């Protein structure tokens, strides 16, 4: 599947890491790890800036992450007006950090830097695929 399926609005169609979207279809969020030097990357990359190798393996993002920071957005850029308000977040999964949105099931007054979150793949009403961060005890 093409990368244009990723996100609320994709700006990129062709990439060597479009397999990321195939894995979202399977309900899973992946990083890439360099087979040559072992560096891990999120966002996923086709090429390693450490050893200049291009042999990458997909590796699943762990289930437990910690919220690094967040913001509740009340005013959206062009193309995202229908989504407001939404919460952008950066979550630390140990070896990698992941940027995305917090799920709407996380109540605003519960959100705290350092809280535990896990990734959840979601299909948007228009068929686009994305992921969000939800509470560790969230049941799909």
């Amino acid at each position: 599947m093409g990368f244009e399926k990723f996100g609320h609005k994709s700006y990129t169609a062709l990439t060597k890491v479009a397999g990321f979207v195939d894995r979202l279809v399977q309900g899973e969020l992946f990083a890439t790890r360099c087979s040559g030097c072992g560096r891990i990357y999120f966002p996923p990359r086709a090429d390693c800036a450490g050893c200049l190798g291009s042999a990458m393996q997909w590796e699943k993002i762990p289930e437990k992450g910690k919220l690094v920071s967040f913001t509740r957005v009340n005013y959206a850029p062009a193309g995202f007006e229908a989504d407001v308000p939404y919460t952008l977040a950066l979550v630390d999964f140990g070896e990698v950090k992941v940027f995305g949105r917090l799920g709407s099931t996380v109540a605003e007054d519960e959100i705290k830097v350092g809280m535990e979150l896990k990734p959840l793949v979601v299909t948007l009403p228009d068929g686009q695929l994305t992921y969000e961060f939800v509470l560790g005890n969230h049941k799909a």
Partner: protein
Amino acid sequence: MNKDVAIIGVGQTAFVRSYPGAVREMVFEAFAEAVRDAGITPREIGASLVCSAPEYDKQRSPAGMVAEYLGLNPQPTFVLENICASGTTGVRVAYSLIKAGLHDIVAVIGFQKMSELSSAESQERMGRGADIMWEAPFGTMMPAYYAMHARAHFAKYGTTEEDLALVRVKASRYGALNDRAVFRKEVTKEQCLSAGVVASPLKVYDCCANADGASCLILANAVRAKEISEKPVWILGLGAASASMNLTGRDSLEGLEVTRLAAREAYQMAGLSPRDIDVAEVHDCFTIAELLAYEDLGFAEPGKGTDLLRAGETQIGGRIPVNVDGGLLSKGHPIGATGGSQVRTIVLQLRGEAGPMQVPGAEVGLVQNIGGVGIYSNVIILGR
């Protein structure tokens, strides 16, 4: 002390909501002021560097148009772009062209006419100044990124929304004195705190104003500077760095590593330390950015920027006056013109020509100019 390259002329238009003319005419205003200030003729300028973020421009390759309109043909000209840091990247490149001996005098011209786009359109373009594959699809924009830096600083150091309001109150006080500023009203802490939330915890007054404007700096080598200028302002130190565009690549959000690196380089080159700085212009595109700058530039220890702010030490009369021209918050932020305008402010300060905004006896000044959310940083130290 490096005294090889000096700034001998400065100019800028008033920063306004909507400039009543074409880009070339706006640029001409700043250029004519700088050339007259330097006391030279355009023919003496060896090259022109045009600093602008192209996503806002309808004119492709604006250097060609600018050089033609300013009478700078047939000298070489080209565009430099580092988003909001474009102007000071212009200074860095001009410095190196002069130092290399390719040109004796170089003009650094910055501009942006942002009023041709709606605010949502310009936020969308700014959002694409971050990672378009992995961040922009979530609906990102500059206030949101800086809001995340603010939230991280709050969580680690106990900084509050009131602290951010103090930054804006200070900016507005000086913006009211600056006849080149777009926002000339004073605002109170209460107004700041009760304003609508843009991206929590940042509210309307935590964000700088988009503006139209142009700036121009004339740089010269030591021989020409001493011949031409009675009050040359010397470039004592330069530092520049870059960082991961995607936030996932940052070690922490409580500061901008890119500024710490650029500052270290600039202080080292100048042989100076943060204590030696008499007046500073920092990139306060958002209130939190000014607080981060206090710490990243070494004016305060990490987490202690709020102490400096609350004690009034960054006002005129304080230990290190910062953004006493209103900063980006009140003066306005026409992307490509901003760096040149910051440098102009410090040049006027060091010449003792800053009028009601003058810091008495300022001898050494510093400029910090950021591109994107800490993707690029330039730090420049200037002295008499």
